[in-house]
């Protein structure tokens, strides 16, 4: 009898462990890698400008919100997060630039997806909230990402330095904010979430697109400061163009 009991308990123990310990989920890593004219861009590095106004420029801060990261297939969609803050500023070495800024999502149900979508910036409903409503674990919980004057989060920050043809130097700061600026991006990509594996998804951030987009160019020498402004104003238009360019700079690797 005792032997039977011990055997039963042992069986139950191992059986329960099998069920509890078995991992039935997969992971997804989404990386954003800055590149300039096809090569990795290391923050703070001077690179040749692509227009005639400047000799070179460097980025000292490049950060932006994305919201509503979602995977889709024909039958379903899963939300990965409410909001994320893509902090390219910290990619200040060659290795970090090549690795990119990575978001990781564990415990995803294995499935096949064929599209990923997100908003660059924040939608108006989220932008109407305030940092006190979130934990500091969320980028929405930080006052450093908020601009009180506009009752808005700072949706993107682009800052850097310039050297002109006459070798004089300058700086630029373009912060976007206020409602109505966010841009939705979606990409049709095969994304397989596999048990016990990490799926890597890589997006490039084409730095040249930030300033030299056709019909959307920003001259950071002559328009070197903007933190939004009244809709329709020059500052507002530059800020909106900036966020739009950031959204368009995101391309699957």
């Amino acid at each position: 009898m005792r032997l039977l009991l011990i055997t039963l308990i042992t069986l139950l123990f191992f059986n329960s462990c099998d069920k509890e310990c078995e991992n039935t989920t997969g992971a997804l890593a989404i990386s954003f890698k800055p590149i300039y004219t096809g090569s990795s861009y290391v923050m703070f590095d001077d690179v040749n400008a692509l227009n005639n106004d400047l000799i070179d420029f460097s980025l000292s801060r490049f950060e932006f919100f994305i919201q509503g990261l979602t995977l889709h297939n024909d039958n379903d969609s899963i939300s990965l997060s409410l909001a994320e803050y893509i902090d390219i500023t910290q990619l200040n070495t060659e290795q970090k630039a090549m690795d990119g800024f990575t978001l990781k999502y564990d415990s995803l149900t294995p499935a096949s997806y064929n599209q990923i979508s997100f908003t660059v910036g924040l939608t108006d409903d989220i932008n109407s909230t305030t940092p006190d409503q979130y934990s500091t674990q969320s980028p929405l919980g930080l006052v450093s990402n908020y601009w009180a004057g506009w009752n808005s989060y700072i949706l993107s920050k682009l800052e850097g330095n310039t050297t002109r043809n006459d070798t004089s130097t300058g700086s630029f700061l373009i912060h976007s904010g206020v409602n109505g600026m966010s841009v939705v991006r979606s990409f049709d990509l095969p994304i397989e979430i596999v048990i016990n594996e990490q799926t890597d998804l890589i997006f490039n951030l084409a730095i040249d697109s930030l300033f030299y987009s056709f019909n959307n160019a920003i001259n950071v020498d002559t328009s070197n400061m903007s933190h939004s402004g009244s809709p329709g104003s020059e500052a507002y238009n530059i800020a909106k163009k900036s966020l739009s360019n950031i959204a368009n700079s995101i391309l699957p690797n």
Partner: protein
Amino acid sequence: MYRLFFAYVVLSWCACEIPTQNGTSLTHIDYDPVSYTIDAPEGFPPMEIPTDNPMTEDGVNLGRHLFYDPILSRDSSISCSSCHRIEKAFTDGLSKSVGIEGRVGRRNAMSLINIGYSWVQNRPHNFMWDGRMATLEDQALEPIEDPNEMDADWNTIMDRLRNHDLYPTLFRKAFGIENTEEMDKFLAAKAIAQFERILNSASSRYDEDRWTPFVYMNAQELRGFQLFLGDADGSPVTKDGECAHCHSFSSGKALFARNGFSNNGLDSVGALNEFIDLGLGEVTGVEQHNGQFREVTVRNVGLTAPYMHDGRFNTLEEVIDHYTSGGHPAPNLAPEIATAPSLRYFTAQEKEDLVAFLHALTDTSYLSRDDWKSPF
């Protein structure tokens, strides 16, 4: 069997009274922790607390004793409160803090009011001018062994505390330890951090005016606020001090501090390795971080002179003159200053208005808080 049981009871009883090889038992002292609820000031959210250091009444009490007790310094001449004086919003009024034997430290003492709100979870650089501490608990460990501050060593200090009439009881009540040997520097630091987390106040005239608009701040202060904030929605201004970039806030989280790092143009350097004090760069090893220091709160800035990490400016007027000059050139000069279109064109009146607003952020209501004062 009865003899053995009797011997066990006697030994257990004795353990409460006599020193053992492993210190002195404290189990005869009641341990009945009562959770401490931090009252968030109006306009602030509930404070986030590290899960490994929950707030208790006795934890705060122990921290308060340690904060004000010079026993923590090598020669028992100074305490935490020597550099963090309550009447100066927990600064010391000196350019650089002075430690034991008159030793001058490297930097200016930072205010502790609302300091618990500077903690951002999972961020490595939350405290000190150079951001070298992630938590208040980590920070509290350092001054005791800094040769320019208390110049002690924790082993000596803990021996003092273990053999003190009061502290074994306070540690027992705060953390439930059973023996004096369990008293260690990490518990001491946790207690000090707990006390620091209660130092919250936001009852300046600015705050009162936010609760009941246009009553408490006068016209000059309101003009200064507009210059501080710049291009506020619906209130276009011709001048913008760009102050709120680094001293940022929101309606429900009025910290007036971005708590990031920047080079605010204090020193003129041609190359990033020329800074005398590397600031954040000393911590991260990233050259672009050289000369960058914490963007601190301007709450109570009227009480915390002198200003900057090295206390180089004695008055707020000097500070405003510095910023309106555009700062000194450096490869990593903050673009908020370098690109500011109107900063260099502030009139004398506008500068006075800005200073007036900064004084409206002064809050002395906490001076009546007996539970913040020395228990000795």
